């Protein structure tokens, strides 16, 4: 009896040892797999359709080539600095690479959240467009590399323009005339201005002011004031959807034909024409102001956070994202403008006129000044649009106090 018990105790101890060994083997095995298969964390702010292409067509070839996993997560440009700060302060940086709006770079550099790139790391393929290669340098040091340039083009409903015998406007005068015609004929305005406030509104306002010859960061500049006078004159003839229009809802307005003419980023081209079948939609670069034609070059650049755990791998991913093959995929699948002069070969024929419109707009491209008070500038410029366009306040009364606020901000932060 006693020997039975001792035999059973020995057997239990053996089983326990076996289990412990198995657990150890599994743990070591998992660690080994993890060590052989590092995970790279990348953040971007993309629409659902864009994420699909990134996850299905862009990242898998890189994962195979580098034997790693890429964890791609959505982080908005406004939240990214806070995330990076929190991770840095906690001593646990989890992000290896981020794509950030090219208008929100100053804060990252000022707060010491992004690594400066040195030597070979700053090298770019000769096919990268020179104007884009120049961006990403702040205070004479390169912190960012180009990934996705963007420029707004004008979308118009060709069928409606043809029906009313109108031509797409090329000047502010023609724009006003077209807006008036639609309002008179249909009872509602059909020209859309992205007047919701925030980034969409300020992007459009910026290029309108530049095309008038003004300084967007000086609301007291005569040409800036003239821009607001023109917008005030145009406002009664704008589509009612303008007040809530931003980048995504502009596509809805064009698709549902509540607007016939609107400026927007090129991501709407495949969405409206290929996905929604809106073949009456046509595009061109847009209209000129009294001084010139100007279009803001927006888009995202790539940066590596300070303390990123997989710096070398992140640099390899940057090269992959800038490669001709990937830039062609992004252009053909998503209609994204490309950073390379040699990445237009894979375009389907129906996309070519729209890409030509984008390239035409790029030729009139302007970069916005990267200022540390950009978020506050957006607030002031949005308030100006809200008061003058939607609350119908007189330009000469609404603008001076806002110009003074902006002037104080410039003096205080420069």
């Amino acid at each position, binding site marked *: 009896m006693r020997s039975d018990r001792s035999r059973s105790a020995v057997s239990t101890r053996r089983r326990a040892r076996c289990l412990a060994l198995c657990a150890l083997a599994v743990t070591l095995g998992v660690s080994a797999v993890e060590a052989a298969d590092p995970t790279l964390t990348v953040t971007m702010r993309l629409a659902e359709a864009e994420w699909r292409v990134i996850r299905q067509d862009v990242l898998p070839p890189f994962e195979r080539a580098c034997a790693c996993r890429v964890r791609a997560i959505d982080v908005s440009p*406004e939240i990214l600095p806070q995330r990076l700060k929190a991770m840095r302060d906690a001593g646990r940086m989890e992000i290896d690479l981020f794509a950030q709006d090219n208008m929100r770079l100053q804060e990252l550099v000022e707060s010491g959240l992004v690594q400066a790139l040195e030597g070979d790391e700053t090298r770019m393929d000769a096919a990268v467009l020179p104007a884009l290669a120049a961006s990403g340098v702040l205070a004479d040091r390169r912190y960012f590399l180009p990934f996705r340039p963007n420029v707004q083009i004008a979308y118009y409903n060709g069928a409606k323009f043809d029906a009313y015998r109108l031509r797409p406007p090329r000047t502010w005068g023609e724009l006003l005339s077209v807006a008036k015609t639609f309002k008179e004929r249909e009872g*509602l305005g059909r020209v859309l201005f992205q007047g919701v*406030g*925030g980034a969409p509104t300020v992007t459009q306002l910026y290029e309108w002011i530049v095309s008038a010859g003004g300084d967007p960061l000086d609301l007291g500049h005569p040409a800036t004031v003239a821009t607001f006078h023109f917008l005030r004159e145009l406002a009664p003839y704008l589509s*009612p959807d303008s*007040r809530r229009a*931003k980048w995504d809802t502009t596509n809805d307005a064009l698709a549902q034909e509540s607007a016939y003419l609107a400026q927007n980023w090129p991501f709407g081209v495949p969405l409206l024409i290929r996905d929604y079948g809106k073949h009456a939609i046509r595009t061109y670069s847009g209209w000129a102001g009294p001084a010139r034609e100007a279009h803001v070059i927006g888009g995202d650049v790539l940066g590596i956070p300070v303390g990123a755990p997989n710096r070398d791998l992140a640099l390899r991913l940057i090269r992959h994202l800038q490669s001709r093959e990937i830039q062609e995929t992004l252009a053909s699948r998503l209609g994204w403008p490309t950073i390379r002069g040699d990445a237009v070969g894979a375009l389907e024929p129906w996309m070519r006129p729209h890409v030509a419109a984008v390239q035409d707009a790029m030729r009139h491209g302007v970069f916005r000044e990267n200022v540390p008070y950009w*978020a*506050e500038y957006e607030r002031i410029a949005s308030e100006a649009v*809200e008061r003058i366009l939607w609350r119908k306040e007189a330009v000469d009364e609404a603008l001076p106090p806002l110009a003074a606020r902006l002037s104080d901000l410039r003096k205080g932060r420069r």
Partner: protein
Amino acid sequence: MKARALLGLLPLATYLSCLTVAPVASTLAMSATAPDVGITLEHFRRIVTDYQFGEAVINTLVITGIGLTLEMLLGLGAALALAGRPVGRRIFSILLLVPLGVPTIVSAAVMRTVFGTVGYLNEALLRLGAIRSPVDWTGERWLALVTVAVADAWKVTPLILLILLAGLQAIPGELYEAARTDGASGWRQFFAITLPLLKPAVTMALIVCGVDAFRIFALPLALVGRGLPVLSTYAYVEYLEYGNPHTAAARGVILLGMILVTVLAYLKLAGPEEVLR
């Protein structure tokens, strides 16, 4: 025994501490502090001097007022109709409760197809000849407020219906029989029996839906955009668009304060026993 009772309360206490007390305390702390400055009321000063603040407060109050009135009237009417056990009660109940199961952001999208310039409402009115050109239902501020309140009522009325229907079914039928025997009219029965005995359910519905209305967010944002600020969207824009978590927290604290003041004032007027009953 006492120790066991305390132990039993531990999960609830943990839940409340972690998910209610700590976030509220953290929001309060954020609202009254600033990086590199420490304790400050600067965020509140900025909010109070902002040109949209007064408008956001008024908009929130107006939407709450119009919305609650509409929801109570519709909810009470539907509850009274269903309490009378009409033919097809089951089907009507299901149809009336459908909006309750629709996520708010989806209901906002649905409402855009109704109230948009190319929406169903304009299309119907145009075909009926009631209007000659489409109406911009969210163009003018007061019309936009009514539109948002109506859209909110579509979503919230079923909840009020449920609460009031439960209240109506708890009223003893003998009271109505006695009243009928005494020759009381339908109106007399409604004002002398139904309304007084329905008061706890009405109080509960007003508090639950009133708090919900104060926090209204997706509908004004989706239907009108930022042109119609309410306190929730006002805090959202500050946080997401301008990246100011401290000012956004201060806006949240103001909203919380408004809700607390309104609920406490109502309880004072209606009597707390109505809720605790």
